[in-house]
């Protein structure tokens, strides 16, 4: 028996029943195309995320109150971080050029005349606008004098201004935050929706001292930001801050930190991790659809074997061994997976290019799907082809010819 000629019989069977073979391939085409598109979108998104994360100022170290992975938002009501901690950091760290302490409260009631709303209140130091690169568009920032005198003044975001004052100019007006009356002295520039999905402009800035003593009545802050003079100084500063705070808070080894330190590097790692996880989940889904495609192929092959029982019997009568029949049907299965998956990879590539060109979806066409076609085709062809092929090979010629 010549292996090649028998294999050729399997390939010939493909052209014989085009619709059936197309249906068999469909699962492979869709599965691989999906996989290719997901990979392309995954790659594109990852790059987008990294680009976005890169806007985090690389020289800045943020120390959050509360332990855990505080890369999102400082935990509310955690009283572990004190102004004295910030002072200690200020004294011990070398090479910083800007520092900022913030105490924040989310969703405080605001009132102007009869208008009321809720907004986030940030009790800040005068370095806020520079540290956050967020200047006022009108009026004045929170100043050193305001801190010293615990002035009841505030700077409002554009959303808050609009809610309370409509089209009127809020500067010089008095609003109530909680039960305390504040004079509006500035309006922040608009920043839109923040990365967390909240409106960044629905906020009010007040002096740190006023916030802690007069409004919040608390001796702790939410976070400290330290900007270093150079990126190179960041890792050492992080280490020093951690040691310093652990010592000040009397934390010894088995206990975990009651604060968390966030840097650009760390954020990038987390973001990459998230997008990687997302891609993995999507790839698993595409794999699942491939699996379904494989099962469909197996079923159609089984039907095909049943339909071609007479043909198989004839071939056996003419001298085909069981092995020859097995090879023929396995070749058929492998051809289906190989052709189907190649078509799928090409389709996925086209769709990725089209997505990039005609929709806002960012894709990065990948070569991996094409490289994966051969091993995947072999794997699926054998995994889902062997059962029908075996069934065909085991048909008894006499029974089959009947």
């Amino acid at each position, binding site marked *: *028996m010549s292996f090649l*000629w028998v294999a050729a019989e399997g390939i010939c069977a493909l052209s014989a029943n085009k619709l059936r073979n197309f249906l068999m391939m469909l699962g492979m085409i869709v599965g691989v195309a999906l996989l290719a598109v997901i990979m392309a979108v995954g790659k594109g998104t990852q790059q987008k995320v990294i680009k976005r994360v890169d806007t985090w100022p690389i020289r800045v170290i943020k120390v959050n109150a509360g332990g855990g992975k505080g890369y999102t938002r400082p935990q509310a009501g955690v009283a572990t971080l004190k102004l004295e901690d910030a002072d200690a950091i200020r004294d011990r760290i070398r090479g910083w050029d800007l520092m900022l302490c913030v105490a924040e409260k989310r969703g405080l009631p605001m009132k102007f005349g009869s208008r009321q709303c809720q907004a986030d209140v940030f009790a800040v130091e005068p370095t806020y606008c520079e540290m956050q690169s967020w200047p006022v568009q009108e009026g004045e920032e929170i100043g050193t004098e305001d801190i010293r005198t615990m002035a009841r003044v505030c700077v409002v975001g554009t959303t808050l201004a609009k809610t309370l004052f409509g089209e009127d100019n809020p500067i010089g007006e008095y609003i109530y935050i909680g039960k305390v009356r504040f004079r509006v002295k500035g309006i922040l520039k608009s920043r839109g929706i923040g990365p967390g999905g909240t409106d960044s402009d629905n906020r009010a800035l007040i002096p740190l001292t006023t916030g802690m003593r007069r409004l919040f009545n608390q001796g702790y802050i939410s976070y400290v930001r330290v900007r270093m003079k150079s990126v190179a100084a960041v890792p050492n500063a992080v280490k020093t801050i951690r040691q310093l705070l652990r010592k000040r808070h009397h934390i010894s080894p088995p206990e975990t930190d009651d604060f968390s330190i966030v840097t650009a590097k760390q954020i990038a790692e987390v973001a990459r991790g998230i997008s990687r996880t997302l891609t993995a989940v999507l790839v698993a889904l595409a794999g699942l659809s491939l699996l379904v495609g494989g099962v469909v192929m197996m079923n159609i092959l089984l039907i095909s074997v049943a339909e071609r029982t007479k043909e198989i019997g004839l071939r056996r009568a*003419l001298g085909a*061994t069981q092995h*020859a029949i097995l090879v023929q049907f396995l070749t058929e299965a492998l051809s289906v997976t190989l052709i189907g998956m190649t078509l799928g990879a090409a389709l996925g590539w086209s769709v990725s290019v089209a997505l990039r060109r005609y929709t806002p979806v960012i894709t990065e066409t990948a070569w991996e799907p094409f490289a994966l076609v051969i091993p995947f085709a072999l794997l699926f062809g054998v995994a889902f082809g062997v059962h029908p092929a075996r069934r065909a090979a085991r048909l008894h010629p006499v029974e089959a*010819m009947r």
Partner: protein
Amino acid sequence: MIELEAVEKAYGSGSTEALVLKGISFRVEAGEYVAIMGASGTGKTTLLNILGCLDKPTGGHYRLEDTDVVSLDDDALSHLRNRKIGFVFQMFHLLERTKALKNVMLPLIYAEEYPDDAEERAKKALTSVGLADRIQYKPGELSGGQQQRVAIARALITDPAIVLADEPTGNLDRRSGLEVLAIFRRLQQEGRTIIVVTHDQAVAEHAGRILLLSDGAIAHDRPVAEPRDAEAELASLPKEDRR
């Protein structure tokens, strides 16, 4: 050439065992043209399957040329069928959507070694059954008689020791049937061994010897004194009936 000795074939086992062939013995010499007759249910098909090495007897001995068929495994039986036996079936059993030429070449795929001159041989075989101008036709484009002649060409392609035909004229009109029988006669004259299984007395009388099966055993085994001549009968058919 062919030697059967007390061949038995039983289906099932224990109390439900059914003995289909009850000790059949006969010899067929090379170059003989034998018809096996019998009503349905007498074990004709079972005997044909054993002769064709598609099935093994459950008792007795079967020698094909120098091979003891009973002792062979499935692969060896496959090879034996490929080399020694040419099958002709009642339903032709051609591959649809496949040209006559490819159909005829099919057994060569399963030969020990694929011959270089496969296509030449297939063309020659088709020419010898009078289908030289039909080699590119698919079965659906051929008449029943032509399809059966393609099947005969396929049976001959491996140059087998015996041609085994199962009701070869059963699905054909009288003229096509006679054409097939004329080919068998010619093959015998060329020295091939031919065994035809049929229930049709008229078809059987073209052979040189008739074996009559009855209830799984040979009822009688007699030579045909004067075999019918398919060529002569074809010539005597009315002219307007000729194609």
